[in-house]
């Protein structure tokens, strides 16, 4: 714990960020958000509020029209493409449109995120099996992704996002097609990743997953931040409450 505190604490720093899409769509306006390492943040808001746009800025799929985006202390606009690659290997993204390869099996789809950082086949297989059993998909391991139901595809996307044990997880509408029980499995997985140190940003309409949470919730509306529920999060203490509650789970 001593070491954790010495490292830079901030994972995401958005400073007065705006995003305009041509010709004149203002997807994000004047957004400033700071997310600490080890935090879970819920990003809510109506459809079209700008949630996906914000996540896209965080992995440099898009550049902001104005303002600065910093991830892990690095200004994304200044990073070389090599560094962007390295950074992306450390960010797990569950895309809203899944981005699965339909004619590859579930296992292959999950493996991709680990292959790009040259993990061993043994490690990849073990990790894939574990994730699939956690998400209740063990029997689908060799099914083609294109043959899965929407809810199953969604879980595969989530498995791929967390497989490489990234420091930052961006989940865009991760429970949109899931029943409450399966939603529970997904949230358990996210919590486990969070306990191992991952910072997680979840964009969602699904009130059930943030209703009773102790984590911070930010609401967007037409590109503007309308509500930031900061009080719950003890920023200044520098201590991660989720780790405080389960100290035994570290190094798990």
């Amino acid at each position: 714990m001593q070491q954790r505190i010495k490292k830079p604490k901030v994972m995401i720093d958005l400073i007065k960020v705006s995003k305009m899409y041509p010709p004149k769509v203002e997807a994000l306006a004047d957004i400033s958000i700071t997310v600490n390492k080890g935090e879970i943040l819920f990003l809510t808001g109506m459809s079209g509020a700008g949630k996906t746009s914000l996540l896209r800025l965080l992995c440099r799929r898009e550049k902001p029209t104005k303002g600065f985006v910093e991830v892990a202390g690095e200004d994304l606009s200044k990073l070389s493409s090599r560094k962007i690659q390295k950074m992306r290997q450390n960010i797990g993204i569950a895309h809203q449109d899944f981005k699965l390869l339909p004619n590859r099996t579930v296992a292959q789809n999950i493996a991709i995120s680990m292959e790009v950082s040259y993990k061993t086949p043994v490690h990849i297989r073990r990790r894939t099996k574990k994730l699939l059993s956690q998400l209740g998909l063990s029997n689908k391991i060799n099914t083609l992704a294109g043959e899965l139901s929407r809810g199953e595809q969604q879980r595969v996307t989530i498995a791929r996002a967390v497989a490489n044990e990234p420091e930052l997880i961006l989940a865009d509408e991760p429970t949109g097609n899931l029943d409450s029980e399966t939603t529970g499995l997904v949230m358990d997985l996210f919590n486990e990743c969070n306990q191992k140190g991952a910072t997680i940003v979840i964009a969602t309409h699904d009130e059930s997953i943030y209703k009773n949470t102790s984590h911070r919730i930010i609401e967007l509306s037409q590109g503007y931040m309308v509500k930031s529920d900061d009080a719950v999060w003890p920023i200044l203490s520098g201590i991660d409450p989720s780790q405080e509650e389960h100290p035994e789970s570290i190094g798990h």
Partner: protein
Amino acid sequence: MYFLFTIIKQTTRNFLLTWSSQIFTLLTVGLSVLIFSFFYLVYTNVIDGAQQLGDDLRLTVYLDEQPGKELQEEYRYKIKKFDRVDKIVFVSSKVAYDRFAEQLGDDKDILNDMPQDFLPPAIEVYPIKTLDTLVRIKQFSDYLQTLPGVLKVQYGREWVERFYSFIQLLRIIVILSGSLLILTTTFTVAHTIRLTILGRKKELELLRLLGASSTYIRLPFFLEGALQGLLGSASGIGALYLLYNWMKLRLAGTTMVNLFSFSFFEPPIILAIIILSTVLCASGSFSSTRKFLHI
């Protein structure tokens, strides 16, 4: 680091994804190599053959009278001044007569009435047996003509000239088929790689989002091109070898084989052809990734 394993896996995937055009490419590369190496093989053998047939390469210089010892030395000196020669033989009228009689065999009676020196004395000049001499033989002959006391210079002029233009023709064919090889291999390989890239567009986009390095994305395509070159040229050479053996079997015992001792490429040349095709194909795929893979 499981770098190599992952890259090879990715390359295999590419192969399987567009296997039909991969096979087409292999065939094209193989056939081009076959055509090129066929002509090249013929060319090298003809040149070797030229050296074996060099015995025919003899200039006979007829003199007006029998040269004495001193004059012989002077002739020798002047001939060697023009070009390096294998050997120089002086044939006196008497020797010429005896040879002629021998050639006539049973008919030599007809010579009985002839004086023994009715044939002029001659110098036989054997140039060293290289293609170069073949090319310059006419000049050589013209030079010998200018020496004092020379009546006439004879050599298998027609044969030499025809042979020379045949070699020129072969040379052009080898160059043409070599260019064909370069064009077809680079273009078809570039084309197949392009197909693979288009076929994997979705995946490549995803890989970029997952932070795949450009090595991870590019190297498999590069390897794919190199592999096509390697397999294609190896099978082309293999086919040529089979063809060569088949021809040899078919022609065994006939004069063709005895005339030319036809031989296959030496290992270094085989290696050079294979390496060259591999490099060509790899560069074809490289140019294709440069054009169609924007990372």
